[in-house]
């Protein structure tokens, strides 16, 4: 997933980096095809070049050697609301048919069965980034037809188009999973099967999704990770397997 996500980033783009797999993907892209990728972390580090894989998005290694350190008001007002962020990476406990993401509660808000951490910066990243990429492993509980709580809006919150609601960004354009890539359909706004990993059948993907999955007329095939990508991920970027599990 990390290698597939990295390929979505073009050289020179400005990326708002979240912790976990997105962090790995961004640093992989920076060391392969996108050396001029500008990594902006929510904590305020702009143009970060971390010498070690940060455990948290506020790691001191993000500051050392970065181009700029912003206060958090700067991050959200001067970078995000100003329209400077081209790509936002998001994940979540639940992702639904329209790419709405829930990181707040499972069950009702007042009496949650599981209390999740909440938005952090995810709500505003989903609203403002020019496009967002969602990264999540397939599993029907993680991909319900409708999320319990919309923390980060997808393509059709409240049944309306994003532009009608005044959202500057295009929202989630792709969902990168461990078996397939889904893409937002222009017309319906639905997350639609677009490409399969080698050896994966359509039924395997449908089994991990809680709604009848639409699919593109012609499905692409996701290229497996190259030797270089694997070596960088395993030996250089995440030798302690902080994020690479399985």
């Amino acid at each position, binding site marked *: 997933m990390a290698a597939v996500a990295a390929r979505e980033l073009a050289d020179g783009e400005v990326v708002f980096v979240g*912790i*976990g797999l997105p962090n790995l993907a961004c640093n992989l892209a920076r060391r392969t095809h996108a050396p001029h990728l500008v990594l902006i972390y*929510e*904590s*305020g*580090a702009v143009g970060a070049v971390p010498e070690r894989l*940060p*455990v*948290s*998005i*506020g*790691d*001191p290694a*993000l*500051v*050392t050697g970065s181009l700029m*350190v912003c*206060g*958090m*008001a700067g991050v*959200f*007002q001067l970078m*995000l*609301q100003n329209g400077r962020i081209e790509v936002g990476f998001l994940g979540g406990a639940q992702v639904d048919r329209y790419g709405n993401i829930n990181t*707040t509660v499972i069950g009702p*808000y007042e*009496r*949650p*069965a*599981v*209390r*999740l*951490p*909440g*938005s*952090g*910066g*995810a*709500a*505003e990243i989903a*609203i*403002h980034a020019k496009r967002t990429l969602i990264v999540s492993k397939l599993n029907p509980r993680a991909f319900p037809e409708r999320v319990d*709580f*919309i*923390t*980060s*809006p997808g393509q059709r*919150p*409240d049944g*309306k188009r*994003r532009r009608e*609601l*005044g*959202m*500057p960004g295009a929202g989630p354009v792709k969902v990168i999973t461990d078996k397939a890539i889904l893409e937002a359909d222009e017309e319906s706004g639905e997350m639609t099967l677009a490409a399969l990993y080698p050896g994966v059948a359509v039924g395997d993907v449908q089994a991990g999704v809680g709604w009848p999955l639409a699919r593109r007329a012609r499905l692409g095939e996701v290229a497996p990770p190259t030797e270089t990508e694997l070596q960088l991920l395993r030996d250089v970027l995440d030798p302690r397997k*902080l994020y690479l599990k399985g």
Partner: protein
Amino acid sequence: MTDNASKVMPMREAIARFVHDGDTVVIEGFTHLICFAAGHEIIRQGRRDLTLARLTPDLIYDQMIAAGCARKLVFSWAGNPGVGSLHAFRRAVERQGAATLELEEYSHFGMVARFSAGAARLPFWPLKDYMGTDLPAANPRIRSVACPYTGERLATVPALNPDVTVVHAQRADVAGNTQIWGLVGVQQEAAFASTRVIVVVEELVDEAVIRSDPNRTLIPGMIVDAVVVEPWGAHPSYAQGYYDRDNDFYVAWEGISRDPGRLEGYLEEYVRGVADRAAYMAKQPSLVARLKAQERYSSGVNYGF
């Protein structure tokens, strides 16, 4: 107050004088410079009914919630960064029908905007945010206003003006002129929004050191009530140029906080069982060798004219 009289005092005195039962308390710092030493002293002094506000409650508010200090939490992301959950927080919220902690929840941008409004003494702050989300339904204090110039609908959040804000920093002088480098979070806004300000520093320096590099001063002494000198006062958080984040402890907190008995044991041994931060450090002599920062100096600038 603008005089240069010393505001230096021990942590015990600063908390006793400036943090009261029922206060809205902010211990800020985004991952960096989170003042655990102040939180631990608040627990030792048995403060109650506090409204705790912070973007990321982090382990320090999880400990204060477990210790019974908190009535309400105002926040935007309540997890253990890179690890998982804050389990004392979750137990206080997930308890069916008898939640023991009141919540007021925003996003990061919303919390930053609340501090910005508080610092500028405005009643609210407008932002382009929250459309299409369920957050305003969960928190009726997130509202909106029509722009008087364009008619555009903008989200609003109310000012946050804490009774007391604690800021951990690398250095200050005796009057509280405080310098921070590395991630600066919302400490400046939180301090200016607050009625009282406690600054806790790794090092006390001469006024001449502050004056040699004035662009690094985030908090001027005029808004500071107390200066506490507390080396390693942010551990297991970190201080850039002084010590690294104790990621191993953040990972260990998952197991400690998951079990209420173990969590209570931790508080008894490392918080209530020590007199102050010096005793906390003396209990863990290997921390310094493991976490002390390497040297990476900047090249410096010319302030001449």
